[in-house]
């Protein structure tokens, strides 16, 4: 029949079809034509689109419906895997489903909140691997039987009762709203965030936008597909659990400025460290730590100076002489006088408190004075330049003082 059924009616029909799946294909299609017509008429009785619960109250469960039909039509009893094997099938499929739905998402969540990029990748991959492998094992354990056989054992039935109890707590009108409004919203949200998040890791913004839209479309398609073939549930339920963990995390991260776990790792990778790594302290030159400064005058003589920046703030470094290393505390720990004295190890390469020596002597050979650049040419009147006069009266203890500009 050329009817397109939607929602609860389609689900109910699919479940009846699953119950009758052992019929010869031709007869199955013929009888389902009738059933589909019947469900359409029954749905029309309700006025609005009925919920699955309403349909079940009116017609009995899909299994009861199919059994009635089978008896009245004189079809042979359902051919099922014999007794115990049937139970085992259901339980095994359910067990793999449970593993896919708990262990997989657990590792993925561990990955999301892990502090290093390597861990994120490792646990994320592990989680998804566990999820997909157990889900496929679950579907395989079904061996083509109706997915609802998983509830045909004591544990499964008890679980179903518990869930039905929770669902019954929700007022019927809210339940309808949840399904009619909540479900499409959820489908779109999980698709957009899932695909968007994935592409945001590996692609540019435009790729992310296109990826999100595609993700939403795929997610809706999967949702519709799952309504028809319930075996998809083995994959969809665990993935939904992952999405239920990931979506709040993404939203929280977007709100809080992407400053934890996975998002932080992501930022590090992309070269932005605004939130996590504090700016390095101390004095740096091209990224290397500067621990001491050895000033030389134009003639290559080491001189003592005090350093200030353009605002008149002293450029100070931590003291590293013997006093700083061995206890003397009643003084500033920093100084802007350079060169600073540093500890000189004794001939054995050791230093002790008693024998500690420190020195301001440069630990390298002073460079030859670059005469052409640093020595100004003599003035036309033959008077020596400033540098020359400094040479005339060398004063090793001179302190150069840079005046603050304000």
């Amino acid at each position, binding site marked *: *029949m*050329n*009817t397109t059924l939607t929602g609860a009616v389609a689900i109910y029909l699919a479940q009846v079809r699953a119950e009758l799946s052992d019929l010869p294909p031709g*007869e199955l299609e*013929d*009888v389902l*034509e*009738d*059933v*589909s*017509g*019947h469900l*359409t*008429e*029954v749905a*029309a009785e309700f006025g609005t689109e009925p919920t699955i619960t309403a349909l079940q109250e009116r*017609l*009995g469960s899909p299994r*009861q*419906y*199919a059994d*009635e*039909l*089978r*008896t*009245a*039509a*004189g*079809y042979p009893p359902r051919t099922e895997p014999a007794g115990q094997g049937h139970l085992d099938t259901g339980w095994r499929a359910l067990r793999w489903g449970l593993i896919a739905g708990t262990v997989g998402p657990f590792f993925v969540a561990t990955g999301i909140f892990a502090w290093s990029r390597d861990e994120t990748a490792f646990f994320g991959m592990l989680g998804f691997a566990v999820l997909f492998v157990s889900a496929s094992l679950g579907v395989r354990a079904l061996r083509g039987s109706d997915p609802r056989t998983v509830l045909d054992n004591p544990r499964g039935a008890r679980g179903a009762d518990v869930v039905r109890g929770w669902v019954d707590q929700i007022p019927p009108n809210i339940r309808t709203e949840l399904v009619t409004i909540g479900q499409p919203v959820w489908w779109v949200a999980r698709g957009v965030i899932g695909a968007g998040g994935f592409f945001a890791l590996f692609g540019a913004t435009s790729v992310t936008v296109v990826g999100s839209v595609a993700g939403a479309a795929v997610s809706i398609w999967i949702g519709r597909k799952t309504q028809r073939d319930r075996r998809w549930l083995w994959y969809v339920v665990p993935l939904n659990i992952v999405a239920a963990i990931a979506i709040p995390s993404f939203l929280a991260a977007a709100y809080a400025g992407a400053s934890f776990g996975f998002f932080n790792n992501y930022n590090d990778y992309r070269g932005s460290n605004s939130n996590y790594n504090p700016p390095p302290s101390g004095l740096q030159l091209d990224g290397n730590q500067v621990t001491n400064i050895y000033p030389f005058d134009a003639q290559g003589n080491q001189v003592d100076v005090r350093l200030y920046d353009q605002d008149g703030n002293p450029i100070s470094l931590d003291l590293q002489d013997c006093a700083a290393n061995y206890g003397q505390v009643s003084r500033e720990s920093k100084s802007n006088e350079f060169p600073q004295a540093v500890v000189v190890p004794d001939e054995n390469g050791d230093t002790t408190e008693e024998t500690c020596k420190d020195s301001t002597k440069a630990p390298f050979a002073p460079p030859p004075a670059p005469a052409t650049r640093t020595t100004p040419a003599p003035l036309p009147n033959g008077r020596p330049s400033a540098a020359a006069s400094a040479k005339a009266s060398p004063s090793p203890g001179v302190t150069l003082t840079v005046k603050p500009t304000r």
Partner: protein
Amino acid sequence: MDTSQLLKGVLDLAVLAVLRDADGYGYDVLRRLRAAGLEEVADASVYGTLRRLFAAGALTSYVQPSEEGPHRKYYGLNKTGRELLARSTETWNHFADTMSVLLLEKEAA
């Protein structure tokens, strides 16, 4: 006594009877049975009965478009169906008479 138990035995006859005067689609048959007073009839068993009678060659089947929705599959009696209805009616009448007599004798006794 549960009417639905009795119905199981005579549902064939009831379905044939409501199709005697006019062809009908499944839901239509269901409605006619209910209107005739067979309230307890289960939806699915009517559809199953139609399939069985069709498979037994007692019914014809054809699809007709409807104004307000999907196409509908109609069922109607063919020659075999009419003969089956006649035979079944006889059987039923005989059975019903026997039962009536039996129950009357009991009452009298």
